[in-house]
């Protein structure tokens, strides 16, 4: 029953800045858009453990290993906050996981790039988590209560992720000539993909207007991207790395940094599944899920057995 009256009432609540909670009436399309967006966010957190997990055993020191372990564990936590927030929309966890592993659900393309050196771990913390923070800070004010609360929690933890990467990159950038080269090389490779994390230009983003109308998102892809660029230019300068964009130029008029054309062909190619690591990532995720099946089964059997014992005893 989606009559105009109900839709108007819903829009009025949104416009008044009210949060929508799981049991409240909402347009079916709002629900579907949230499920798509939130589960995509959750999947990204989970797959995001892979590129960094790749370096845990080869961390350069015990300290860095502890930090990386904690960060990767946080990413798992973020995935779980988001999955449970998505479930409040009436979709089951197992269905979400199925869509991700065997269906058409997407995750952020940034995780389809390889981590080739330890400097990539630094650049990921700085650029990828930096971009994620810009996006999630906005989502912390999203109109859907559970999504907003999950993002508040995520943002609190994510600032450590970015800072540890930025600090490390700064150290490398002021280290030996080899380290400096490694640091710059990683920035060269991660800069453009991290700009793509904000999604297509507003003119090519069919969902944006609707999501903003419903205050699921509060800013457009291009607004967020510009905010990110402005900040990163300053941070790059402070640690002496160069952003690989010859067109980067301060615009006195707007007060923002102009930047060059984003290689969208590459973006779409990776989205379509042809990135360096797409197949590898899916293979690893499916293997983790399938190899864990006996554990989930055993835990259920154990819980069932204990329940029977308790019933017998009482």
């Amino acid at each position, binding site marked *: 029953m989606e009559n105009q009256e109900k839709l108007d009432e819903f829009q009025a609540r949104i416009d008044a800045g009210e949060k929508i909670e799981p049991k409240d009436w909402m347009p079916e399309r709002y629900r579907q858009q949230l499920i798509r967006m939130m589960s995509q966010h959750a999947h990204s957190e989970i797959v995001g453990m892979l590129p960094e997990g790749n370096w845990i055993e080869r961390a350069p020191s015990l300290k860095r290993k502890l930090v990386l372990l904690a960060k990767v564990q946080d990413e798992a*936590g973020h995935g779980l906050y988001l999955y449970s927030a998505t479930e409040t929309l009436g979709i089951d966890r197992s269905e979400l996981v199925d869509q991700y592993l065997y269906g058409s659900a997407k995750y952020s393309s940034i995780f389809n790039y390889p981590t080739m050196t330890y400097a990539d771990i630094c650049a990921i913390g700085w650029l990828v988590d930096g971009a994620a923070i810009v996006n999630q800070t906005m989502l912390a004010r999203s109109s859907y209560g559970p999504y907003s609360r999950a993002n508040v929690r995520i943002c609190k933890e994510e600032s450590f992720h970015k800072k540890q990467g930025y600090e490390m990159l700064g150290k490398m950038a002021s280290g030996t000539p080899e380290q400096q080269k490694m640091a710059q090389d990683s920035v060269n490779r991660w800069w453009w993909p991290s700009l793509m994390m904000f999604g297509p230009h507003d003119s090519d983003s069919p969902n944006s207007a609707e999501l903003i109308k419903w205050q699921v998102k509060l800013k457009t892809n291009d607004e967020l991207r510009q905010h990110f660029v402005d900040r990163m230019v300053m941070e790059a300068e402070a640690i002496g790395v160069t952003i690989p964009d010859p067109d980067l130029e301060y615009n006195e008029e707007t007060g923002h940094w102009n930047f060059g054309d984003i290689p969208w062909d590459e973006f779409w190619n990776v989205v379509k599944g042809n990135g360096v690591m797409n197949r590898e990532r899916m293979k690893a995720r499916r293997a983790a899920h399938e190899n864990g099946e006996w554990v989930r089964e055993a835990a259920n059997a154990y819980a069932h057995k204990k329940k029977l014992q308790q019933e017998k005893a009482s």
Partner: protein
Amino acid sequence: MSDNNSNKDNWPLWEVFTQPKSGKPHEHAGSLHAADKEMALQNARDTYARRNEGVSIWVVESKHITASTPEDMGPFFDPANDKPYRHPQFYSVPRAVKKRS
């Protein structure tokens, strides 16, 4: 949301409440899946209290929670709406003692 045991992959859903420090009330932190209550507590600690966010955790299977519905919101809370005499602002006191109260 189902606790159907025939589905081997589906652990039941639990709601997690954490107490940020002693003296404070427990607050809803989120939910998670676990096969039994011990596992629910451990998962709650790992998911919602990695940075000392809680000194105490409650978990309860989601199916055991009964909640009011948004549709009843008006009538359900109605009885409180016409009783202003339950608030101290309803009463007047001499000006001289006002500031000290």
